[in-house]
């Protein structure tokens, strides 16, 4: 079958406990742009049990079609039934592009599906666009048009590569949450709903879930925060994070942290910014006592304004900060909080 028979941009609409994640809407936002360039439409793949009601939400965020696979086997995420559902959709409907969130689910599902349908998968993309491959014509080699060009960081964020998948379909990518922009939802938008069930025959690959443990947190998702007050090893102790919390409270921000802080057990993993944590881009990012290793920078350097406070003037954080102050955070941060109290009501 020719590659040109593959049409449409498909998005995995990840849901957990029958609630769609923000990543589903972010992927739809990007899919809409790609579909426009390719003159095609956007299809959401909605997999789960009792999830059909979520289709309208996907329509409001840009899905033209929603393929619903509703089956009790899909109640909680397990690799095999989900991979079977998605691979069956791909084989049946032949999309040219498939986007999956680079979440703890998507980074398991994506590779399994790509191996099953024998195509390439580019991980953790930060930029997706339509273009030519090779980028510039090379004598003796066909230049293919309308290819998905997938850009991703590698080497802990030190290098960046643009990757194409010219000879296999679909072109598959996982995308980090927080990177793509969702559209303003269009109230009342409707999508064409397609019910599809490939049939599920449990085997040894259908692993058994014995227990589901939710690690409930009272914390705001740092990816949604407009202002982040982020602390590193330099903060010194779990207790001393209180001065960051005080600053965050007065300026309407949220506390986040570096990996070293999580490794020391001072803060929970969900507050971690960086390569192995979350990617954030708030309006203001305070980097307090954070050296700014490349892995940390990879998760926050897209912030609009970066303000760094660090006693070590050679700290790499000063290479990416917009405004840096070399000094003692224990003196500066509480004073800053006091000054802010005077102006912020």
């Amino acid at each position, binding site marked *: 079958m020719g590659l040109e028979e593959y049409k449409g941009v498909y998005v995995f609409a990840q849901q957990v406990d029958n609630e769609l994640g923000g990543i589903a809407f972010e992927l739809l936002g990007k899919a809409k742009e790609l579909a426009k360039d390719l003159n095609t439409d956007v299809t959401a793949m909605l997999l789960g049990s009792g999830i059909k009601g979520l289709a309208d939400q996907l329509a409001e965020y840009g899905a033209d079609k929603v393929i619903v696979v509703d089956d009790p086997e899909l109640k909680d995420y397990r690799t095999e039934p989900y991979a079977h559902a998605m691979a069956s959709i791909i084989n049946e409907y032949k999309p040219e592009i498939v986007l999956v969130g680079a979440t703890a689910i998507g980074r398991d599902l994506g590779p399994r599906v790509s191996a099953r349908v024998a195509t390439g998968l580019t991980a953790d993309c930060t930029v997706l666009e339509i273009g030519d491959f090779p980028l510039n014509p090379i004598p003796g080699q066909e230049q293919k048009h309308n290819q998905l060009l997938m850009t991703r960081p590698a080497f802990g964020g030190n290098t960046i590569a643009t990757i194409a998948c010219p000879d296999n379909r679909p072109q598959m990518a996982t995308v980090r949450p927080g990177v793509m922009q969702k559209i303003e939802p269009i109230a009342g938008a409707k999508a064409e709903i397609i019910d599809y069930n490939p049939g599920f025959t449990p085997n040894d690959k259908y692993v058994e*879930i014995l*227990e589901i443990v939710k690690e409930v947190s009272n914390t705001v998702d740092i990816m949604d925060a407009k202002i982040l007050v982020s602390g590193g090893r330099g903060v010194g102790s779990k207790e001393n994070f209180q001065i960051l919390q005080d600053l965050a409270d007065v300026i309407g921000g949220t506390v986040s942290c570096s990996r070293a802080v999580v490794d020391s057990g001072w803060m929970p993993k969900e507050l971690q910014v960086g390569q192995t944590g979350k990617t954030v881009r708030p309006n203001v990012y305070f980097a307090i006592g954070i050296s700014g290793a490349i892995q940390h920078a990879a998760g926050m350097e897209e912030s609009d304004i970066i303000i760094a406070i660090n006693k070590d003037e050679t700290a790499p954080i000063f290479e990416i900060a917009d*405004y840096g102050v070399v000094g003692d955070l224990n003196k500066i941060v509480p004073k800053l909080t006091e000054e802010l109290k005077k102006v912020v009501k």
Partner: protein
Amino acid sequence: MKIIVCIKQVPDTKGGVKFNPDGTLDRGAMLAIMNPDDKAGLEAALRLKDEYGAEVTVVTMGLPKAEEALREALAMGADKAVLVTDRVLGGADTWATSTTVAGAIRNLEYDLIITGRQAIDGDTAQVGPQISEHLDLPVISYAKDIKVEDGHVIVQRQYDDGYHVVKAKMPCLITALSELNEPRYMTPGGIFDAYDTEVTVWGRKDLKDVDDSNIGLAGSPTKIAKASDKVRKGAGEVKMDLDADGAVSYIMGKLKEKHVI
């Protein structure tokens, strides 16, 4: 019980990335280490060996130099080591890598395969699940605890909002998080033994049920269109000589200037 652990030798990007004067990455100056998630996977296998008795075989694909990582694994307590190396395997993406490693593993007996979640150079987290697909095995990714019980594994599988306790029948494949454990050090005796142990070296012809169209650069569906060292955001201002009051008024000034307050 027979356990296979897949490991990768990677340049150490932690705490000391070296740059050339022109701003590009100086890979030659960086230490080659066993990938941290893989090391946690190896430690998990060695703990299962300590507890239940097992034969642990480490497998890597890479340049001949990757033998160093295998020797380290042997010195930590692995029993056998296999190096898959061949010029025609070079330039492989995750698809071609996973078909190659699966082709090597088909020659071995196993109840359990453990890989790291992801390598710190590529960061894709794809090769483990893809190997499981090629070998038609159950996969449990992102493991933060592994137990073995009556022919099954019971694994805590990490998610963004908590974890699942998952049970799977062996043989199966598990990908390990570095949070899983604190890997042990090599022992002097282990190091001594490691250099007595023969490392099995396999090339293209030793891979089982692998088509030429699925290996190396040519067999990789994904192709690099462009690669560059990342253009870093330019530095802003850094104030070195302000006292605490000065620093605070400087920051306050910028917050006002940018209409944050």
